């Protein structure tokens, strides 16, 4: 088993964190895992992305030329990574900010994560919604493991934050 995921969006959306949460969860489940941040002057302005590879064998390159899954959180990322997914790969798209237009293949999950996040209470949890949604299809890691990572990452005394994030995760996983 090897799963290569590219997660992309804009700077402030918590893209890197999404990837780290996924990677950390995979680690806790004793998988081989790598996480690679985006390179280059792209950091300025536009898009941010990271690459996560989860496998049950040693991983060669953490760099993903062709992804098994794409989690896309805004429009420019969609344009940028459109050519970077394998045939038949899974698209998870934040339709609040990105309209995919015509995409080949049927594995497309698109939900308005940003709008839903505003519903849950804070816009930042859009990524958790997307992660939940992604995991429901890919079963890469247990939701419970992700929950425990969320708890780990949160600063002490931020129970409320943890609750909202977990809620978003579960809600994402429930989207259908």
């Amino acid at each position, binding site marked *: 088993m090897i799963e290569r995921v590219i997660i992309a969006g*804009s700077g402030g959306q918590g893209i890197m964190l999404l990837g780290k949460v996924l990677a950390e969860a995979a680690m806790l489940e004793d998988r081989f895992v790598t996480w690679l941040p985006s390179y280059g002057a792209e950091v300025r*302005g536009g898009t941010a992305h990271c690459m996560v590879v989860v496998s049950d064998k040693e991983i060669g390159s953490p760099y993903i030329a062709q992804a098994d899954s794409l989690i896309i959180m805004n429009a420019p990322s969609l344009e940028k990574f459109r050519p970077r997914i394998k045939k038949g790969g899974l698209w998870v798209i934040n339709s609040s*900010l990105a309209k995919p237009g015509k995409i080949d293949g049927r594995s497309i999950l698109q939900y308005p994560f940003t709008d839903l996040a505003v519903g849950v209470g804070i816009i930042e949890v859009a990524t958790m919604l997307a992660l939940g949604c992604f995991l429901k299809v890919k079963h890469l890691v247990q939701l419970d493991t992700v929950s425990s990572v969320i708890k780990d990452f949160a600063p002490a005394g931020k129970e409320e934050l943890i609750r909202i994030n977990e809620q978003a995760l579960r809600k994402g996983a429930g989207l259908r």
Partner: protein
Amino acid sequence: MAKIEINKERCKGCLFCISVCPKGMLKKSKQLNKRGLNYAEFIDTGSCIGCSLCAVICPDCCIEVYR
């Protein structure tokens, strides 16, 4: 009588122009541009005095001023 034109695709939504306009002619868009950002919009109420302050402060050279 004056007006400005904003290149909305170049705009990065820093809001500088909005903050300097003495006439409050600019506001943040609800829409996103292709960069995925809320850009500055010129709401032409006819009060623009062509002072060019908005253009002077724009880091992305998005604004042209006519008078």
